């Protein structure tokens, strides 16, 4: 199947600064891809080139195998939100959507439908000025959904959302992708999207540093298990007998290449008391930080 999004040697220079440097990647249909990197890594610039708002200095950015500007009525296939605050404060949320829907012949009934989808129907006729940041985020998303697109491109959609908003967004994106649609979502915090995405594209200083499935990335880390026990030394011996290596840290053990279940079973069999047993959630984040760490040139 042809990729939904394809970047080929995509490059953007601003004077001497190379914001995006020879970036190549492809997104398959039906995937949710996290586009990750620290602030200033070139994520937004890449998205702007994909969406036809900025012209590449070299290479090309294609959606459905074409430059965005050459797609006929692109809003019917692609929904995108680049900034959460792109509204005229004096215009109502509903009228904001209508200024977009009318341009491509989408009926007002669809406007009301997406307003319900993002749960803004009761505030639809109020001016955006009075909206909270979360409401603005959802209004932006509503605009992206107007054309019932197959692809959603969202730039830092979780920025400024409260935890409830983040969960709402996560559920929404899962439902959206569940129906075979494709999502490209950028973030500077891996943890923010780790529960949502199945693929990751990690860039740093405009260059691709990692492109993989999220579970493969997790597997390379080995998903460290953290276990705390007053009998840490005995547990380390028991694990060693089961051919599992553990690294001791005070009363804690850091165990690679196993699961919490296995460690728990070994401890029980040896009659060892455990005070804590969990998977190290931050290890994924540590890999991300490692991949995107500032290195001297």
């Amino acid at each position: 199947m042809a990729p939904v999004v394809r970047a080929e040697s995509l490059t953007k220079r601003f004077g001497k600064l190379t914001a995006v440097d020879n970036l190549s990647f492809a997104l398959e249909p039906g995937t949710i891809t996290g586009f990750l990197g620290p602030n200033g890594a070139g994520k937004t610039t890449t998205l702007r080139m994909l969406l036809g708002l900025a012209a590449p200095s070299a290479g090309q950015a294609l959606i459905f195998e074409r430059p965005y500007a050459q797609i006929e009525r692109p809003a019917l296939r692609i929904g995108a939100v680049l900034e959460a605050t792109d509204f005229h404060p004096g215009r109502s949320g509903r009228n904001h959507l209508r200024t977009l829907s009318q341009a491509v012949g989408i009926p007002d009934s669809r406007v009301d439908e997406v307003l319900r989808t993002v749960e803004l129907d009761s505030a639809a006729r109020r001016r955006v000025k009075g909206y909270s940041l979360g409401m603005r985020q959802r209004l932006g998303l509503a605009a992206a959904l107007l054309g019932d697109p197959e692809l959603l491109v969202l730039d830092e959609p979780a920025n400024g959302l409260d935890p409830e908003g983040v969960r709402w967004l996560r559920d929404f994106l899962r439902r959206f992708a569940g129906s075979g649609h494709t999502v490209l979502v950028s973030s500077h915090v891996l943890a923010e999207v780790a529960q949502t995405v199945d693929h990751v594209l990690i860039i740093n200083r405009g260059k691709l540093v990692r492109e993989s499935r999220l579970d493969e990335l997790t597997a390379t880390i080995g998903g460290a298990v953290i276990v705390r026990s007053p009998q840490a030394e005995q547990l380390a011996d028991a694990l060693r007998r089961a051919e599992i290596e553990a690294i001791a840290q005070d009363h804690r053990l850091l165990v690679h290449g196993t699961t919490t279940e296995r460690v728990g079973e070994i401890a029980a069999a040896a009659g060892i008391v455990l005070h804590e047993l969990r998977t190290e959630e931050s290890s994924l984040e540590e890999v991300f930080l490692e991949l995107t760490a500032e290195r001297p040139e």
Partner: protein
Amino acid sequence: MIAQSRAELLKIRSTRTTLGLGLGMVAIILLFVILAGLLSDLNGLAGAENERQFFGTGSGSGLFAALAGIMLVTGEYRFGTIRPTLLFTPRRSTVLNAKVIASVLAGIALAVTGEVLAVAVGEVILHSRGVAVDLDRHDWTLLTIGTVGGTALWGAIGVGLGMIVRNQVGAIIGLLAWLFLVENLLFGLAPSVGRYVPSQAQNALMGFTTDHLLSPAAGAAVLVVWTVVLCVVGAALAARRDVS
């Protein structure tokens, strides 16, 4: 193009900016008609040229049409709506043309309002002061074409200027400085050049017979050239510039 123009008209109608501009225009035109009508001595009101200028006050709508055109473009950059606008309609020339059409229509609405107001209030004042209106059908025709057509073109000029400058405050200050300073200085100091500025071209189109003005037809042509040049330059820049 038609769909995009409808969307642009909705942008104009759906904020209070336009209402504010319209009310501002009504206030300014009323103020000038009333002041000129009540404070001028009778010699300053009688006679065809004086009356053309008196009733021509309605063409003050041109300034407000230009401001509306500027806002229609620069508001998109100021509030970031240019991003969703271009995501829905990536062809920038389509967006620009639609904005020109919407702004021209808004200009016509403003001009008709302004002119009706100026003529209605002006007639009442002249009548009450016992001044007979000396204008013939030809005068009224030019006055109407000059006010309505000129204001419509000012709407398009505003869009072109907005596309070139993009910064709202910069574009508005630039326009005001041009209208109230540069044009007046040029026409005052070097009328052979100054008669080609847009406002004087519009005055010529309205049939004013002030010294040095072009003929109405030449005035119309010059105003159209200004409009086209600004819009073409604006379109060329819009096609090339990245949107942040």
